[in-house]
């Protein structure tokens, strides 16, 4: 059990709460709570005759417990604080690209949804160059069209319902 201060602390950070544990703990508590609340109305039943709420309720309570333990451990454990950043820029662009595809697919069709999504995603890279990304987006759309829509016959709209 550490009592005195260590003379040589690493230069990158001082002793701090374990942020990962705390956030992870809270996340699991949230998930557990969500399932607990969401499944509250399902019949619990008894062990002889398990209702639809039996398994989920037990699991959500377990998850609440686990999340609590993890969060608690985050407060108790001292770790070196690292600068581990959450790459919001990349996240927004990549996730946004997939979401954009979802939004545009039915209405605008593959020919518009995919290049738009790929262009947005491409901006997430540090090595983004507009013309290169545009050419790649078109190339990939053509390939996907040939392979998935035509060769494999998947029912993907080429140009969607807005046209």
């Amino acid at each position, binding site marked *: 059990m550490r009592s005195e201060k260590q003379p040589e602390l690493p230069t990158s950070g001082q002793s701090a709460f374990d942020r990962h544990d705390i956030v992870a703990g809270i996340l699991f508590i949230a998930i*557990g709570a969500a399932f607990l609340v969401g499944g509250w109305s399902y019949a619990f039943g008894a062990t002889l005759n398990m*209702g639809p709420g039996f398994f*989920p309720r037990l699991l959500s309570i377990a998850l609440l417990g686990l999340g609590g333990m993890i969060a608690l451990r985050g407060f108790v454990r001292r770790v070196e604080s690292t600068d581990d950043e959450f790459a919001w820029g990349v996240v927004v662009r990549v*996730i946004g690209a*997939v979401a954009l595809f*979802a939004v545009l697919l039915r209405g605008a069709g593959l020919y518009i949804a995919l290049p738009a*999504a790929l262009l947005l995603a491409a901006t997430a*890279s540090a090595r983004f160059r507009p013309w290169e990304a545009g050419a790649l987006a078109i190339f*990939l759309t053509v390939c996907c069209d040939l392979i998935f829509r035509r060769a494999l016959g998947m029912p993907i709209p080429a140009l969607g319902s807005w046209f």
Partner: protein
Amino acid sequence: MASFADQLALGFSAALTFTNLGYCFAGVLLGTMIGVLPGLGPVPTIALLLPITFGLDPISSFIMLAGIFYGAQYGGSTTAILINLPGESSSVITALDGYRMARDGRAGLALATAAIGSFVAGTIATLVIALVAPALASFALLFSSPEYFSLMTLGLVLSVTLASGSVLRSLAMVVTGLLLGAVGTDVNSGVSRFTLGFGELYDGLSFVALAMGLFGISEIILNLQRETTTSRATAPVNRILPSLGDFKRMTPPILRGTLVGCVLGVLPGGGAILSSFAAYALEKRISKNPERFGKGAIEGVAGPESANNAASQTSFIPMLTLGLPSNPVMALMIGALIIHGIQPGPKILIEQPTLFWGLIASMWIGNFFLLLLNLPLIGIWARLITVPYHLLFPLIISLACIGVYAMANTVFDIYLLTIFGFFGYVFAKLRCEPAPLLLSFILGPFLEEHLRRSLLLSRGDPMIFLDRPISATLLAVAAIAIVSLVSGAIRRGRATILQE
């Protein structure tokens, strides 16, 4: 019960059709390719191809998907050796000595060793499956619901113990996966659980979207965050064929690695990564000059590469015989079985013998293809490595979007992909392992069903799990695993292996 020879003959007759040879070849080729390419692994690839295999014959689908999986182990070692960048996490260890060999101008030898080791290991492992699986399956036919429940619980616990990272977090991931698996219509009561009124969720969350989001999209975000603008120079590859002396030196490690891989591959959560680490540690420990390791010892390539290939094949055993996935790829394979309307479990050997033996036969054929493919095509793989990531990841995104959509023709699943991709990244940042979540997601409905049936059998008495000997044994092993986890023993052991 047909004789072993008859069953093998059945298998080969299925695997040697022109079509299935083609699918086998396509699978291992694709597998090697994604093993070489950074940021793209067997999990997202197989997840993406699942909707496409829906229209195919189940045997052909499995032959191809399996080929992708063990092919990826080959491909990953190529990049590990040539540019010290393992394409697959199981090739991390190969890079230690393999890259040094490449730097010393012995890249060809390293690659050849990896290929030969993998081939020998794959061949032996396939034989092991052929011998062990039927025995295990007949044993498992004695199982009924309590045993299955305990077995699956043990499987999930083991996947936690052998996963890296915090135990508590992996446990929480398991429970989260079980909860996610509960989304959808409850078969027994007809109640639709957690569907929030979305009709698209009546059949549960799309596991392609889950797998792709957790493993594929999050990987993309992580890679882009770590992106560097330096290009990667590959070491030149010249002499490929090993000398007689080389053969003599690589044979014992190959055999030892195969043994390690065969055993560890069966364990849930174990698999290729653990096997390659363990094989390396073994070689180093029994070597007469351990200081050679890390400086280009051929044993440091032969052992781990054999181990990871053997493990990737024997990991099929629990999936095929017990319906228990030992790693995320096997979880996807179970998903594939379900898509084709095949119930996972020991009955597969009885009800679908052609599928089982055809798959085994094709594994041997696939290993053969890989040996042929890898050495001549080294040049192409080396070129492929230099593909810049910022040109690659749009391809992955396109495939993800279209693949997920194709599964059920609903845009809803693409939105699920965004959610799971986001949370996949969050989990990765919080150092929560995604693999236990995927395993428990697939197993969840089965687990609940077996729990329900067991309690019905016992008229509500939960002691049934302890009253029955097999079930009690399984639960005892699970308890031991958890206890030894808490005492940190396993973690210390793994840490020492990692350090070496």
